[in-house]
């Protein structure tokens, strides 16, 4: 026996199981990554892995919008988000990002919780959530704690989640109704494509035509999700024109090189990251670039 499988139906039950088996359990939240990883793992006879499938926990499947806060249960699938009226209303770029995940099969199985905890630098849902300054609630038998999404990651595929913890929900304050957003992704094909680059842009423009708020979060070019402060600073307080948008976009390329260093792909990725950011910003500003 190298593998065991359990499918709790309540959060309480799941927390008990994880508490008891914290040294040899793994949460399954859709299995779109876990199953792939398991194929390359060597089974360990002495310590059979316990897979804890939490997709049957209905308490974790919800999208709420109350008091200006959107709360999304961890077991909501990409497909659910892509079809959610609330998300389309308050953060359509998040719906776009989830619609760009893999294929219909993967979107139907894969969950937002799984996508976050798997912590792939190329995860499609993370740039918009980062731009939205989302926060996470983690629960365990020991209690619960909230962390900012950007503090959750330690590196590629590494997070601060403890073995007995479950990601319960991701939540964020709905952007001002006047704000606009865009998500663009560059893959190697139209579907079943892992992002080579992606950009989420969330921008608000005040009555005078100046950018009052900006959040720029690229994907697949940084070890973990982050907003690019220099790019945002280049936008805020300015009336958007070619020069302003260009210089903000340039910052994304610079940041990528600062954080990730120069690699074989940099010669291509840097200018293309700038171009993608530029288009995302213009798209968020309501200028159709495609």
């Amino acid at each position: 026996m190298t593998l065991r499988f359990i499918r709790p139906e309540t959060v309480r039950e799941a927390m008990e199981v994880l508490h008891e088996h914290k040294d040899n359990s793994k949460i399954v939240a859709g299995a779109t990554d876990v199953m792939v990883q398991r194929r390359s793992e060597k089974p360990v006879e002495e310590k059979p892995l316990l897979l804890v499938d939490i997709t049957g926990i209905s308490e974790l499947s919800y999208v709420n919008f109350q008091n200006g806060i959107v709360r999304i249960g961890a077991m909501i699938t990409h497909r659910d988000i892509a079809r959610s009226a609330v998300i389309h209303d308050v953060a359509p770029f998040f719906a776009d990002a989830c619609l760009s995940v893999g294929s219909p099969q993967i979107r139907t199985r894969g969950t937002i919780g799984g996508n976050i905890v798997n912590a792939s630098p190329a995860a499609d849902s993370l740039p918009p959530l980062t731009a939205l300054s989302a926060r996470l609630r983690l629960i365990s038998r020991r209690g619960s704690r909230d962390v900012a999404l950007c503090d959750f990651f330690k590196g590629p595929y590494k997070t601060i989640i403890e073995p007995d913890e479950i990601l319960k929900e991701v939540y964020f304050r709905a952007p001002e109704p006047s704000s606009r957003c865009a998500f663009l992704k560059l893959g190697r094909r139209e579907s079943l494509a892992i992002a080579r680059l992606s950009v989420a842009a969330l921008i608000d423009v005040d009555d005078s035509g100046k950018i009052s708020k900006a959040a720029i979060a690229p994907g697949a070019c940084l070890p973990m999700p982050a907003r690019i402060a220099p790019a945002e600073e280049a936008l805020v307080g300015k009336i958007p024109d070619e020069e302003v948008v260009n210089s903000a976009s340039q910052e994304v390329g610079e940041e990528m090189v600062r954080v990730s260093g120069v690699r074989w792909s940099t010669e291509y990725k840097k200018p293309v990251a700038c171009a993608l950011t530029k288009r995302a910003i213009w798209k968020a500003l309501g200028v159709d670039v495609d």
Partner: protein
Amino acid sequence: MTKTEWVGADVIRIDAKDKVRGVLKYMSDLSFPNMIYGAVLRSKHPHALIKKINTKRAKELDGVVTVLTHEDVPGLNGFGIAIPDQPVLCSDKVRYMGDAIALVGAESKEIAERALELIEVEYQPLPVVCDPEQAMLSSSPKVHETGNLHNHVKIERGNVEAAFKEAQVVVENTYFTPRQMHAFLEPESGVAAIDEDKNITIWCGGQHPYRDQLQVARALGMNPRKIRIVNTPTGGAFGGKDEITVQIHLALLVLHTGRPAKIVLSREESVIAGMKRHPMRIHMKTAAAADGTILANEARVVSDTGAYASLGGPVIGFAIEHSCGAYRVENVKLEGFCVYTNNGVAGAFRGFGANQVTFAVETQLDMIAEKLGMDKLEIRKRNALRSGDIAALGHQMEASVGLLRTLEAAENSRLWQLKEEFKAKPSAPHKKRGIGIACSFQGCGLGKGLPDYGAASVELLPNGQFAIGVSCPEIGQGNTTAFAQMAADYIRCSVDDIVVLSGDTGHTLDSGTSTASRSIYTGGNALKHAVQNLHNAISPIAAEILCVPEDDISFGHGKIVSKSCPDKILSFKDIAEYITARGLSIKSEGHFIWPVSETELEGYVGIPHLLYSYITQIALVEVNTLTGETEVIEAVSVPDPGKAINPQGVEGQSEGGVVMGMGYALTEDTIIKEGMTLTRNFSTYILPTSLDMPCKIETIIAEELEPSGPFGAKGIGEAVCVPISPAITNAIHDAVKVWIKQIPATPERVYTALKSREVS
């Protein structure tokens, strides 16, 4: 020829319903009671000596039934269509990561896989041979004792040097093509069983059951008759199942255990161990006169066949034969090298060497046209082979030659007629559109010196229907439906009254391979002879029943009629009942041997061909100048298949071919570094998906009937995926003025080319 009822009609595929409903059982779906599961231990090094193999611990594992090594191969420990240089189970050396060293049979797949980890192999790693040019140097380590150059082809005609001097334009470039993966949906897999008399049956995806039978028999040292191979239905092959895959391993398992066995390769294992398209490096120098006439072509082609020969030898020959395109070229100097390395294995793949050289020569042609200010279609018309012309290898085009017909139809297509309008409106200002065109031809059949034969059978069943048998497997291309249509028209019965037996040495005669765009032509011709014999067998019986002379009998529309007395009519059912009642049966055979070219090239087999299918394809692309991405918006595909037995089937082949050639041009490459495969599955090996397909693929069938073909048919399975690749790269040039000399034209490559163009 009398009007056909079924040939030329869009008869629904006879396997469509079962395939669509998921009812059809492929070989990997089959299971038997008491069956064991096989798993193969592959090499840990791309190139190494084997010092020791210890299977003791694996054998001791609970649930393991057998662990086999080279010592357990009773016959020749080798296989290979041309030469048996690939070990069934390696004994002293491994030459690529897919080499098989041991074979486990166990009660479950999981136990078999665990047992693999318990097998201890001691290796002595050797330097890895990864560059075919380097491999040819005498200083290179040897993959095989015989040396790394497996095959060398050299053809010279006329005087290229003189032609280069007098030419108006000379273009000279080096091209690189990728290691494309067949990517059939069903990986290499099958099941086998053995009876008390040690007769072995193997159900396994494949492309030539009778040759599989001989290869298995050779490895087992057995009489071939004791081995039955069933290849139909195969879940996709494209040439990648032409060679032995798991057949011999299955046979060894059942032979040593007496139990049924099953092997299904995982996708990763299939990628590492399976065949690929030969990557080639092509240096080409082409000269043309001021009017666009090609004066000379010089080519040096280096092909990486990987660790074993398989069909690498014939592939380089085929590439050389097709390296001047479907054009008249009087002065040629063509040289091809097929080289062993430790880079996987390469073998047959739809196009068989034409894809690589067509990419080169069709790009050369566009460059020449541009330098001369000529229309891209016009230059192709000017040089197109016509019937009676002498082709590049010095052989005369004796059979039907349809290139001009395809070019004319392509010229009249909406996409070509309105090309400026199509190009004028890209979907965004930073996107540029272009249209490209390319042609090719594709030798059908095995070529000169390789006698190509085929047989078919037809049997009148007791219910008045007919069972026809052709052993060319159904690999998804739809040949069984085409056989049924042709048989129905030959017999003069309804296509619904035909039952097709396919790809089974137990129930069908040897019709040869489902490769080389040959199965329709071969199977059709063999069926034609078989039906003649069938009619000859039925006539006297019908005459006896109707009390008329034998020569008064005619066949028409499901009926047997007296010519002199048309109200004397019999159905085939009447005949069936008549003979069944008398304990008789009617089963006829037909045998066919291919005609071959008169031209013989001393020292070469497989070239030239007599029969070719022709094709012109057009692509409309949109290139994103900010990212280097290329999207194929529309394509036009104009094949000359001879008579289209099933036009819808030809369209299906054409559309599938366009998408396969598009993947080759834009995204697909199996990357191997230092003998290690990096792109191990479909997350990193980028096949086009349905969303990447062009919005529209228009297929215009330009039939140039072939007199020797059944109903005028040739073959079309391969040509459809060939010229679309250079049509796409030529379209990229039309859009953004950069020449693509290395495919796939990935966003990085296009972007880099764009940037260097800006700089210069």
